[in-house]
């Protein structure tokens, strides 16, 4: 039997064997099972390897404060997140054995690119799965409301980003009224995913009584790290299945997280989400303004056209009236002329007729007078012939008895006769009376 070794001798042997047989360092891939920061700034870890859910390897590890500082900042700046549990890492390690503390490995470096690739790979797997399940575009099928007035907001009330968001909404330059309701959730760390999912479920439950137009997921800003939760499959699924269109403002500058990809619309920051919501209002208002303008323009055009039509009609009426009036006046004038000429003719005719009558009358009267004159002359001549002197001058006499012509008186012998000659009156007595002649 070999001489027994003391424990310290054994441990020294183990240490010596390890030291002589192992290289000073190895690149090892492992998952961080546990990570604790010590007060002195060192990091104490447990590295594990799993096959499915089965743990197949495990070892303690540490990073000394000085090294840890460098690794951590380089890791964060490359991957955008802090080293944390569950992360797959590629580490440069040195195997150590301490007689008291036992076997552990000291991490000298961690290659962030490996983790990045690893995360991208995992992210791609989740995306592939979501695509297979038809969840990638499910929420995008919702048409964004024209005017998103009622917002369900998932965020942390204490976060600066949330404050910015609300500030932006409530003090918008156009005075738009936006109703919002906050559903509190933890927005970073391990609990974030389930907390956000719970908030989504609360909103879905509230939709029975409340009307929301939009679901907004905004992260508080601050650290750019710790974004893993937004690549979570369960959260992506919850977002995809929401019955409201989801707008994200997670503040992830580097690249899109899965929550962004499944959401209806992704904005970079909470402020951008607020701007986006307000732009919906503005667009709508502008459209209204444009419609109003078009109505105004069209109405103006119609009014102008009607005005022109009326003016045309007015003009036409005026012309028509003028021409009618002209025609009427002409007709009147011609009638006047006609009347004048007719009256004139009639008067002339009457005058002629009067003249004729006058002439006729004169002539007639003259004839009559002439006739009378002739008669008178005839009478005068006859009278001349009847004058007794005519006979007396020729020797005839006129004899009367007692003033009675002798041929008319009864005569007897002895009667005294008065005989007239032209110049003498002779008185005599009848001697005898004899019949003579017839």
């Amino acid at each position, binding site marked *: 039997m070999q001489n027994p070794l003391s424990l310290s001798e054994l441990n020294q042997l183990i240490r010596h064997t390890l030291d002589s047989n192992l290289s000073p360092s190895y690149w090892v891939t492992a998952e961080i099972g546990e990570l604790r920061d010590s007060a002195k700034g060192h990091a104490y870890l447990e590295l594990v390897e799993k096959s499915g859910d089965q743990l197949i390897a495990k070892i303690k590890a540490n990073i000394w404060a000085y090294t840890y500082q460098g690794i951590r900042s380089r890791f964060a700046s490359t991957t955008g997140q802090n080293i944390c549990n569950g992360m797959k890492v590629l580490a440069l390690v040195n195997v150590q054995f301490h007689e008291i503390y036992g076997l552990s490995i000291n991490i000298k470096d961690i290659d962030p690119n490996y983790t990045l690739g690893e995360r991208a790979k995992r992210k791609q797997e989740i995306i592939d799965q979501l695509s297979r399940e038809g969840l990638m575009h499910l929420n995008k099928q919702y048409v964004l409301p024209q005017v998103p007035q009622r917002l369900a907001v998932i965020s942390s009330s204490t976060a600066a980003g949330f404050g910015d968001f609300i500030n932006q909404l409530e003090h918008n330059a156009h005075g738009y009224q936006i109703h919002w309701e906050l559903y509190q959730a933890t927005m970073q760390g391990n609990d974030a995913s389930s907390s956000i999912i719970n908030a989504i479920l609360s909103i879905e439950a509230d939709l029975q009584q409340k009307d929301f137009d939009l679901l907004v997921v905004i992260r508080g800003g601050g650290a750019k790290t710790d974004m893993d939760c937004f690549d979570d499959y369960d959260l992506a699924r919850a977002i995809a299945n929401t019955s409201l269109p989801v707008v994200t403002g997670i503040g992830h500058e580097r690249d899109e997280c899965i929550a962004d990809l499944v959401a209806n619309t992704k904005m970079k920051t909470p402020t951008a989400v607020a701007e986006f919501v307000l732009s919906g209002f503005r667009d709508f208002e502008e459209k209204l303004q444009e419609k109003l303008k078009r109505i105004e323009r069209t109405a103006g055009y119609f009014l102008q056209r009607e005005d022109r039509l009326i003016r045309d009609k007015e003009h036409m009426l005026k012309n028509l009236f003028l021409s009618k009036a002209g025609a009427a006046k002409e007709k009147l004038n011609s009638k006047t002329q006609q009347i004048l000429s007719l*009256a004139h003719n009639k008067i002339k005719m009457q005058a002629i007729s009067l003249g004729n009558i*006058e002439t006729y009358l004169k002539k007639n009267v003259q004839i009559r007078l002439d006739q009378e004159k002739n008669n008178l002359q005839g009478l005068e001549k006859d009278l001349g012939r009847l004058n007794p002197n005519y006979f007396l001058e020729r020797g005839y006499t006129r004899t009367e008895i007692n003033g009675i012509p002798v041929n008319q008186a009864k005569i007897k012998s002895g009667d005294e006769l008065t005989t007239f000659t032209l110049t003498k009156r002779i008185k005599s007595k009848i001697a005898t009376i004899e019949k003579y002649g017839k």
Partner: protein
Amino acid sequence: MANNNTLSYDKALHRIEEIVRQLEEDNKSIDELSALVKEASGLIKDCKLKLRMTEEDILKAFGEEG
């Protein structure tokens, strides 16, 4: 006649024609003749005056309108 002026043109004309007819009938005495001729010539004078006045009235009426 005293009422010559009050006779209308038509009545006056009618009267003139009647006188002409009476004269044509030749059965009027010379004394009557003189009276009739006086009446007729008076009526003719009046009618002529009336015609002239009518013409003036018409011209005046249309003259004012125009």
